[in-house]
């Protein structure tokens, strides 16, 4: 069967017209450089050797980070831009849900705009008249259709644009991240409409960041990365591969963030430590270099005034902090419910008998999600000599999705800090469920006989 959309070895090179964007005609004429100026100075490959084809009636998802070439691919399929090399073939009438309501004129009524917009999308007057009521009803704008479009809210504007585009009766529908329009109800209506078009055997090309949508809707998916196809095929597999790669970059970013935070404190901290080598020299309430929350239990009280930093006398020093995943590998990204461990490497510069190890977790709002230490948990210190390792292990990291920061500290039982690392370590928790709050209690739902949900196997 001939594919509905067929891209073969397509490369799109965008020309960056350097300084010529605002070059003047006069200078171009004077230097006789019109033709030269109209040729590009710098190029930027938006797509490189991308090949994919979509059989008629299939739904095809394209995913990838921002700037990976997704929209360029869509524009090539729509015919808005031409490929630099390779071929693009599309069979049937295309409707592109790229820019909703592009071409609406603010001064004239919604009714007139519907007609003109539909003509632009390739409908004849008669076809529009026949579908007009459906369009207005779909957009839920019966009461406003004769008002000028400039009086519409942005939601109304988008809804009308969407309604027109979807009623063009396309063979091939191109969708670029437009499901974010409108409220919940409208989004559902759009999804229902997509499902209907699928049933009618229309080909749909969907560019989105909503991976769930790709998994649920698409027959096939393509993952673009920096203009190249990284994976294609079964949507679940492609999405998983994409997520793994995203996590990897996140790991790197978080590692860099942490390294920067630690490095930033090191210079300050070493200066403080230098002057504070003798325990007596440092009073318990220290001005300047030591913020008041230096008190060991302060981590629970000062959650609204959290600042990054490191302080303490360094008689016992935390030399390294590592977050470990279930496989005891260093990690910065965890899944909700996974095990996690915090491993501290400590060095006691002199034998010590009074020490407490503490850990606390903060979310991005600076709220302390959990904090504990060995003193609170009634462990009585006996001795600490030389180098040692301390591991704080969590069996199941029951946190909601988000970025978290970590405090680690070693101090005396009465709160005098040896080495306090405040919010220096960042990690991220990922979750497939977009639940909210501070933590996720272990939970389950049970329903009596009268309650039933659709799509049972989808729900975990």
């Amino acid at each position, binding site marked *: 069967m001939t594919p509905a959309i067929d891209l073969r070895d397509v490369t799109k090179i*965008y*020309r960056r*017209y350097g300084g*010529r*964007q*605002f*070059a*003047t*005609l*006069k200078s*171009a004429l004077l230097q006789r450089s019109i033709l030269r*100026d*109209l040729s590009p100075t710098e190029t930027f490959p938006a797509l490189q050797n991308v090949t994919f084809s979509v059989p008629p009636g299939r739904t095809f998802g394209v995913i990838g980070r921002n700037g990976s070439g997704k929209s360029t691919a869509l*524009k090539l399929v*729509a*015919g*808005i*831009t*031409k490929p630099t090399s390779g071929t693009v073939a599309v069979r049937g009438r*295309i409707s*592109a849900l*790229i*820019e909703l309501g*592009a*071409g609406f*004129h603010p*001064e*004239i009524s919604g009714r*007139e705009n519907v*007609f*003109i917009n539909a*003509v*632009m*999308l390739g409908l*004849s*007057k008669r076809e529009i008249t026949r579908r007009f009521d459906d369009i207005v009803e779909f957009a839920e704008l019966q009461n406003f259709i004769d008002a*000028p479009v400039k009086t519409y809210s942005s939601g109304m504007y988008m809804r009308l644009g969407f309604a027109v585009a979807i009623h063009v009766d396309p063979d091939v529908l191109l969708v670029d991240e437009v499901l974010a329009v409108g409220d919940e109800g409208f989004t559902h209506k759009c999804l229902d409409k997509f499902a209907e078009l699928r049933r009618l055997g229309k080909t749909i090309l969907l560019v989105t960041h909503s991976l769930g949508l790709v998994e649920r809707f698409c027959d096939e998916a393509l993952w673009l990365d920096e203009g190249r196809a990284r994976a294609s095929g079964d949507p679940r597999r492609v999405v998983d591969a994409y997520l793994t790669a995203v996590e990897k970059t996140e790991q790197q970013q978080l590692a860099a963030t942490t390294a920067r935070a630690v490095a930033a404190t090191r210079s300050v901290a070493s200066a403080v430590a230098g002057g504070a080598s003798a325990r007596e020299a440092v009073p318990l309430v220290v001005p300047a270099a030591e913020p008041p929350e230096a008190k060991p239990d302060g981590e629970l009280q000062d959650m609204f005034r959290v600042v990054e930093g490191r302080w303490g006398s360094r008689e016992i020093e935390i030399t390294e902090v590592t977050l470990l995943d279930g496989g005891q590998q260093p990690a910065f990204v965890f899944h909700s419910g996974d095990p996690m461990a915090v491993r501290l490497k400590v060095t006691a510069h002199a034998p010590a008998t009074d020490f407490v190890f503490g850990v606390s977790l903060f979310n991005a709002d600076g709220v302390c999600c959990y904090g504990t230490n060995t003193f609170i948990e009634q462990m009585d210190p006996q001795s600490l000599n030389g180098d040692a390792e301390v591991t704080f292990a969590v069996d199941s990291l029951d946190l909601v999705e988000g970025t978290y920061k970590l405090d680690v500290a070693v101090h005396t039982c009465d709160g005098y800090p040896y080495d306090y690392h405040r919010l220096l370590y960042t990690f991220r928790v990922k979750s497939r469920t977009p639940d909210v709050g501070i933590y996720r209690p272990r939970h389950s739902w049970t329903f009596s006989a009268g309650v039933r949900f659709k799509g049972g196997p989808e729900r975990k």
Partner: protein
Amino acid sequence: MLSNLATLVRYRGLIQSLVARELKARYRGSVLGFFWSFINPLLLLAIYSFIFTRIMPNRVEGVQPYALFMLCGILPWTWLSAALTEASGSLIAGGNLIKKVLFPAEVLPIVSVLANMVHFFLALPIVIVFLFLYQRPPDAWDLAWFPVVVLVQLVFTTGLALALAALTVHFRDIRDILANLLMLWFFSTPIIYPWFQKEVLPYKLFFDVNPFTHLAISYQEILFFPGPFDHWRWLAALGVASVGLFLAGYWLFDRLRDSFAEVV
């Protein structure tokens, strides 16, 4: 290029609706609406009448009432200059369409030209009415030439508009240059002075190479001056040149077409 030209015919429905939209949108929200198309030339006529009969009276023989003579040239000129000004910015103003919708870009400058042509048509009845009032009814045989002149001007203007629209995308300053060039062009065309005025004659060659001279003279001969229309040779020549200009303008537009979506 030729196949693109052919698809242009397919888009006539779109062009039609866009021109209608342009006209509707222009007067939407104003109290008098479409009446402005009549009132504007009327006011213009009143101002010129006052200036050229009271302040700086012009007594050249055969061109009285002078204000009416001027109006015959100014109205088509307004069509040309407004069309070119709007067309040169049309691709930038319609950037959303070019970038986001599969849309034949040449429609935009063409709509600018056609919308201004309609304004020209709407203003014509005023001229006709006043021609009768001043007892200078245009000759019926002459009037048969009128559509031909309009057609020549349409082809001429469209060719220029396409080229300007395409170039303005790359050279934004064309829009500013254009305003000044149009001013120069206006004064070097026999619109506010008759072509047979004795001060004009020494520069005849200069006037003859100016295409709008022949359009202006044609309009003036057909509408204002009695007697047979005898400028038709020039008009025919201009017609041929205009087709050439149109093809050249379209060729340039077509060559630069692919860059629009990226540069706009």
